[in-house]
């Protein structure tokens, strides 16, 4: 019958067209990556036609907005590193401790309450953390160390640490939960306490996943923007003093794009140069984390 033939024809056409449409959807994600790389490379290349490469890596002064201009990336890197290190000092011990508690100690019912609560922390927008850092954490720090400025690296670093805490905790806990219970039972059968079983059996067995979670959290802290923009200030400088105001790479990018920078100017180009550095660092970190999680995974 002709009508059925027609439907079959339509069906066959759908079978041919649909995969093409779907693969185009998947292609968008590939194009996104290509777009990011292409734009960063071309715009950074044109930035380096205005600013010598040597100055970018050798100068220790970042002063793009006033004369005499200077584009040395180190102060921004230093600020970023300072914040990230503080954040990791907060997040890694707390996150690992919480992961051990949830995976090895917590009664099932308590765990069912605590785990979602910690996950709420990861859903809080960073702008909210920024407000919290500025209006809650900073006054406490200033009460303890009166010489602290309103904008300081410590407050931003602590709050960034809190932001990445759920990530460390939940990824480490996943890694520990993947350790087969026969290993744990073996330790208990030998008379180990829960702490000994956790420290000497579960954590070593899950180490690759745990370290991968640290690296991912580190990378997330480097890319964090709003908390540092709000609480750490806008003073690019080489300092290791957490009570001073610093500027991170991300905060600089925001600062420039808040102003009305004309397309093609040096400031506009500097966004991309800094963005390239940021992208390269976080990209390498993420690859490292994936490699760690895969390469050193113990197969049971």
């Amino acid at each position, binding site marked *: 019958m002709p009508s059925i033939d027609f439907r079959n024809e339509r069906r066959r056409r759908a079978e041919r067209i649909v995969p093409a449409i779907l693969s185009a959807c998947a292609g968008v994600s590939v194009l996104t990556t290509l777009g990011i790389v292409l734009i960063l490379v071309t715009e950074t290349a044109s930035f380096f036609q205005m600013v010598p490469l040597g100055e970018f890596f050798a100068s220790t002064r970042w002063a793009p907005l006033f004369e005499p201009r200077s584009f040395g990336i180190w102060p921004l890197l230093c600020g970023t590193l300072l914040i990230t290190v503080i954040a990791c000092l907060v997040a890694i*011990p707390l996150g690992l401790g919480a992961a051990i508690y949830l995976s090895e100690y917590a009664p099932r019912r308590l765990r069912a309450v605590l785990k979602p609560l910690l996950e709420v922390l990861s859903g809080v927008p960073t702008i*909210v953390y920024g407000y919290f850092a500025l209006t809650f954490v900073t006054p406490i720090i200033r009460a303890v160390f009166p010489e602290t400025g309103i904008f300081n690296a410590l407050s931003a670093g602590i709050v960034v640490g809190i932001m990445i805490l759920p990530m460390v905790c939940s990824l480490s806990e996943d890694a520990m939960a993947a350790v087969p219970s026969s290993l744990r039972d073996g330790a208990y059968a030998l008379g180990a306490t829960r702490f000994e079983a956790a420290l000497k059996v579960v954590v070593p067995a899950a180490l690759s996943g745990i370290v991968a979670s640290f690296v991912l959290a580190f990378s997330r802290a480097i*890319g964090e923007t709003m908390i540092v923009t709000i609480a750490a200030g806008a003073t690019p400088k080489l300092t290791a003093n957490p009570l001073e105001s610093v500027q991170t790479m991300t905060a600089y990018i925001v600062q420039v794009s808040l102003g009305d920078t004309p397309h093609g100017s040096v400031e506009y180009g500097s966004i991309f140069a800094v963005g390239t550095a940021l992208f390269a660092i976080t990209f390498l970190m993420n690859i490292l984390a994936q490699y760690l999680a895969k390469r050193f995974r113990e197969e049971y």
Partner: protein
Amino acid sequence: MEQRLSESPAVYGKSSGLAGAGGVPETLRDGEHRRVLRRRRIDWALHLVFLASTMAGVLVLAALIVDIVMDGWARFTPELVTNHPSRRASQAGMRSAVVGTVYMMLLVAPLAFILGVGAAVYLEEYAGRGRLSRLVQLNIRTLAGVPSIVYGILGLAVFVRWFALGRSLIAGALTMTLLVLPVIIVAAQEAIRAVPRSRRDASYALGATKWQTVSRAVLPSAFPGILTGVILAMSRAVGETAPLIMIGALTYVTFLPGKLTDPFTVMPIQIYNWISRAQPEFHELAAAGIMLLLILLLLMNFAAVALRNKFRGRI
């Protein structure tokens, strides 16, 4: 806990009584006993340390909420939503930002849904397990780790400049779509993977073609899972600030965007604007805005969890 610790010597004594029936010297048993007691005390002390580090996160969450509600309660009024931004704190509201956020979501949700589910269906059902497919997977995982501000840079260069969309609603929506896409693809892939093989086989056995199987057997089963993922991704997009600052969402908008190419603002950007002012009155407004934002996110998360529970085990 205290009780268990004081009980422990008795428990230990009993077991060692069994093991040491052959006559272990009393002194050695005492030393061993002390050691076990010490190990248990260490275990107990660290138990408390681990519990404390878990509670630290919970306490910070509580402090954050209390801090914000105390600051923002007085300004958490209907005027917050009905008034436009103003240079006078007493009259300022975030009407344009709330409307901007709603428009943004209405644009991003369908775009990201179609692209994300399309990509997930392709990767799960059509692409196979070849090298190219693995490369695309790796690419998606990598994109999920790219800092959001880099998406802002991409949006600025591609949508604002290259496509000449300007600092508009549509440029922001496209940037946000790219940002949430990896999250949605991964969630949709998981939901599709969870559909049992038997469902596909049953469909093929009835003579269905591949696309008929995917569209009428697989996708309906995976739909709740996909929707949950999309809602969670949207709740991330609602709170994103940095990429939209990059593409130039304005912080002072006293009108509602009427068409796609109009300038716009969203809630987090209006909040940022208020935070960055020195006067405490504006900080109160920011806190009230944050309350509204958090309530919105909470509702979205409730919806996602409710969906997941409703359809759990109903594949």
